[in-house]
C-alpha cells in the first residue's frame, strides 16, 4: 500500500519518529511556557539548560559513578538550583521592565554557558550509554523501534501531564495562576510571590534539564545540542500560543510529526517547515493556536 508514492511501512515509521522528536519539543516548550506564563520572561537560556542537564548526567556518571536513573532525578535538581540562583541574582531584577530585557539577558547568559562548555569539552561530544534496562529494540515489522525511544515518549507524556495537573488542578497551581493575573493582590493575602516566582523558574529549568538527561543517550552530549533545538522550540511555543501549557504540549507533538513527514517528502526543507507553519499560524491567529489574544 502506498501513500503519495511512499510505502505505508515507511510512512508509519516516520510518524512514529516524528512523535519521538515531538516529545522533546513538547517537554522543552512546556518549560518555556511555564516560565513565560508565570514570570513573563522569555527564557532564552533554555537551550543551554537543556544541554546542562545532559552534561550533568554525563558528569554524575564519570565523576561520581551515578548512573542514568540517579541522573534522571539528580540532574534536574542540580540544574534547577543553578536556575534558582540565576533568577535571584539577575532575572528577578528585570520583571518590571519590558520583555526585551529579559530576553536579552537570558540570551546572553545562554551564549556564555555554551561557550564555557565548548571551551572545556569541545564540540564533538561525549558518549553516554543507554541504560542496560532500556537497551535493545522491538521489531515492529515496518521498523526497528529502539526501546529507549519508546521510553522517551512515555516519560515525556507523563511529565507533561503531571505539570499540567499541578498548574491547573492543585492549590499551588491556583496561587501561581492568580499571581500571574495580579501579583499585588496575591501578596496581600500573605503569599510570598517572589519566592513562588523563583521556584517556578527553577521548575521550568528543571524540566529542560530533565529533557537533557533523556536526550543524552540518543545524541552525543555536546555543548551545541541545545542551541540547535531552542529555535525550533520557540517556534513551537509561538505556534501553540505564548504561555499556554496545553498548547505547547500539543503543538510540540504535532510539529514533530509534521517535521517527520517533511523529512520523507522533501528532506531539504525539514529544518524550515516549522517556521513556515509559524508564519502561517501567526498570519491567521496572531495569538497562536491556543493563546488568548
Amino acid at each position, binding site marked *: 500500500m502506498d501513500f503519495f508514492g511512499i*510505502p505505508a*511501512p*515507511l510512512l508509519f*515509521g*516516520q510518524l512514529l*519518529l*516524528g512523535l*519521538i*522528536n515531538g516529545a522533546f519539543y513538547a517537554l522543552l516548550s512546556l518549560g518555556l511556557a511555564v516560565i513565560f506564563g508565570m514570570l513573563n520572561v522569555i527564557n532564552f537560556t533554555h537551550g543551554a539548560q537543556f544541554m546542562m542537564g545532559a552534561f550533568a548526567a554525563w558528569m554524575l556518571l564519570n565523576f561520581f559513578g551515578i548512573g542514568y536513573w540517579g541522573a534522571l532525578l539528580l540532574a534536574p535538581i542540580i540544574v534547577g538550583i543553578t536556575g534558582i540562583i540565576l533568577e535571584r541574582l539577575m532575572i528577578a531584577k528585570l520583571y518590571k521592565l519590558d520583555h526585551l530585557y529579559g530576553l536579552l539577558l537570558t*540570551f546572553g547568559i545562554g*551564549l556564555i554557558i555554551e*561557550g564555557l562548555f*565548548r571551551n572545556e569539552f*569541545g*564540540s*564533538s*561530544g*561525549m*558518549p553516554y550509554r*543507554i541504560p542496560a534496562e532500556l537497551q535493545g*529494540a522491538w521489531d515492529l515489522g515496518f*521498523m*526497528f523501534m*529502539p526501546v*529507549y*525511544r519508546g521510553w522517551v515518549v512515555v516519560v515525556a507524556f507523563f511529565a507533561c501531564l503531571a505539570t499540567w495537573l499541578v498548574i491547573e488542578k492543585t492549590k499551588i497551581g491556583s496561587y501561581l495562576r492568580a499571581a500571574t493575573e495580579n501579583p499585588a493582590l496575591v501578596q496581600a493575602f500573605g503569599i510570598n510571590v517572589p519566592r513562588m516566582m523563583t521556584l517556578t523558574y527553577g521548575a521550568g529549568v528543571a524540566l529542560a534539564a530533565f529533557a537533557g538527561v533523556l536526550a543524552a543517550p*540518543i*545524541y*552525543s552530549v*555536546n555543548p*551545541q*545540542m541545545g*542551541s*540547535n*533545538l531552542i*529555535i525550533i522550540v*520557540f517556534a513551537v511555543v509561538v505556534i501553540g500560543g505564548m504561555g499556554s501549557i496545553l498548547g505547547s504540549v500539543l503543538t510540540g507533538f504535532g510539529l514533530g510529526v509534521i517535521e*517527520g513527514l517533511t*523529512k*520523507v517528502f522533501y*528532506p*531539504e*526543507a*525539514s*529544518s*524550515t517547515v516549522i*517556521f513556515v507553519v509559524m508564519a502561517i499560524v501567526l498570519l491567521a491567529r496572531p495569538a497562536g493556536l491556543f493563546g488568548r489574544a
Partner: protein
Amino acid sequence: MMNIDRRAVLGAAAAGALPFRSARSQAANTIRIGVLNDQSGPYRDLSGPYGVMCTQQAVAEFGQRGFNVEVVNADHQNRPDVGANIARQWYDQGVDVIVDVPTSSVGLAVNNVAREKNKAYLNTGSATSDLTGAQCSPNTIHWMYDTYMLAKSTGAAMVRAGGDSWYFITADYAFGHALERDTGNFVRAAGGRVLGAVRYPFPATTDFSSFLLQAQAARPKVIGFANAGADLINSIKQASEFGVTRRGIKLAALLMFLPDVHSIGLETAQGLVLTESFYWDLNDRTRALTERLRPRLRDQVPNMASVANYSCTLHYLKAIADMGVAASKASGVDVINRMKAMPCDDDAFGPGTIRVDGRKLCPSYLFEVKSPRESRGRWDYYKLVQTTPAAEAFRPLNEGGCSLVRS
C-alpha cells in the same frame, strides 16, 4: 533565525577585533598567517583551536630566519559569507596567507577572494575535489585530502568487499554533494549501483533516524554517509540504535577523523573502515611529531585535519625564506609557484610534491577501527588495512578539468 543573527554579530566582532599590535616599521618584515576555521560548530574538534596550535608549532619549529611570523585566527562559523568577509578583511589588513578553512562551501568562497586579491591560500580543511578541479586557482594549494581520494580508497574497498548497492545520506551543501558524486562514480565504475540518496539540511540537523529509515527501506548493501564531524557521529550512533547494521547493511563513513571515533566510542565504531592520510601512530616520524605537539595539544593527539596545518605552514615558510619576504608580498601566485617547485618533507606526511593544479600529493591509508579488546589505550584506535601510494591516491591530473593544466 535568531541563530543566524547571533552568529553574524559574533563573526563581525571576531573579525574586527584582530590583534595587529606590531609597529608599522616591522610590518614589512613580518609574515602574517591567518588560520580560518570552525571554532564553535560541528567541525571544531577536527581542527579549530588544535589547527591553530599546529600552525603555531610549525612557526616555532621553523625558528627565526630573518623575518617575523605572526599567527592570527578566526571562526568562520561554517558560513561562506562570514568566511569570505573575514578573508577579504584579513588580506586587506596585510595577512599574507590563509590556511585551514574547513567546510567546502566556505573553502570555495575564500578561494575566490584569494584569487581576486592575489594572495596565497593553503586549504587543508575542505574536502571538495573541485578546489583542484573546475574551480582550481593559481593562488591555491589543496593540502591533504579530498572527496576523490576518500571515495577511491573507502568506496572502492567497500565494493571489493561485496557492497555493490549503495544509498547515500548526504549533507546538503558543496561538500556532501561532491563526496556523494565522487563515491557514486567509483561504485558504478566497479560495477555497483547507487539506489538513491537523501539530502538533509546542514548544519541544523541532529536527528538522523528518519533518513536512516528511508535508506533502510531502499534495501542497499551499504549506506554511505556523505557528511562529517558531529553529524557523522550522530548518524552512526543512531544507525546502531535503530539496528541498521543488524539487518546486514554495512555503514561507510566516507570522511571520518580520529576525534569522531573517540566521540562515538569503540563499542559502536569498531569494524568501520575509513580513509585518512595521517595517523599519529603510523610510523616513527608521526610518533615523534605527536610527542613534540603534546605540550600544546595536551590530552588530544593530532589528526589529519589539524596536522595538515603544521605541514603546509612549514612548507610555506620554507618557500618564503627561499624567495624573500618582499618578493612574497608582491604576488600570491609567485609564492604558490615557488611552493610547487620545492619538494615537501615533514614528519606528518613524509616526502611529497605539489601538482600544477594545486594538489599536494601524499599517500592515503585505509584503516579499520579496532575493537575495544584490541585497543591498548586512549587514542589507540586504528589498524592499517591498505596503503594507496601518493601517485595513485588522487584524481589524475587530466581528469579534473582544471584550467591550469595544459593538455
